[in-house]
């Protein structure tokens, strides 16, 4: 079975982990309540989508 020959150095570990980033979601403004929400989804604040009530908030 293939095994690593060397211990991964702290430098290599940290370089690898520095590329591991979270991307901020692109939000849009809800037309009804002016809160930020995900595009093409129901607004979690006012519970509407396309002027139609979808969720009870």
């Amino acid at each position: 079975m293939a095994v690593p020959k060397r211990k991964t150095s702290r430098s290599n570990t940290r370089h690898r982990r520095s590329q591991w980033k979270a991307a901020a979601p692109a939000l849009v403004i809800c037309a009804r309540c002016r809160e930020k929400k995900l595009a093409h989804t129901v607004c979690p604040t006012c519970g509407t989508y396309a002027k139609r009530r979808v969720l009870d908030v």
Partner: protein
Amino acid sequence: MPTPTKGPRLGGGPAHERLMLGNLATALFEHGRITTTEAKAKRLRPLAERLITFAKRGDLAARRRVLTVVRDKGVVHVLFTEIGPRYENRHGGYTRIVKVGPRKGDNAPMAVIELVEPLQEQVVAEATGATKRAAKEKAAKATPAAKAAPVEEPTADAATDEAVEAAADEAAPTEAPTADGAEVSTEDAEESAAEADKDDKA
């Protein structure tokens, strides 16, 4: 006619996917709208619409075809007697999928899939039911004698949630002063009188 599904099945295999989609279709026809993951909603839509097309045809053969997917005879009866005739004048597009954002536990994208036309009646009925319940509780807390309010409110035409809430808000304060307000006012009067006596003695 739905296009055959490409890629891997949902769940553990083809049989598992058939069972899950059958259960989802049963739940959809039973409740009118269900919340599930986006992937399942997208897989369910062609199947559910095909079942509704069978329901519109309405004969015994169609009923037996539907019963191979939806095993619940009660739900199939509702499908053929209520849901099918409702879509008499609609050629496809019986369901609507609305995305509702990621789920808390595993961040899975969720969606609401609902039957298109019963939406108005059912959702409004549920919403007004909830607001009526809230109003009833509020009224019960305010005064035990305010049982007249919940009787009157169901008769009122609840077109929008705001109207019902506004009515409840209007109803509650008018009834609250009859009992609580009176007690509070008498207590206040006694306290003020006592304070006035103290002031006189001082």
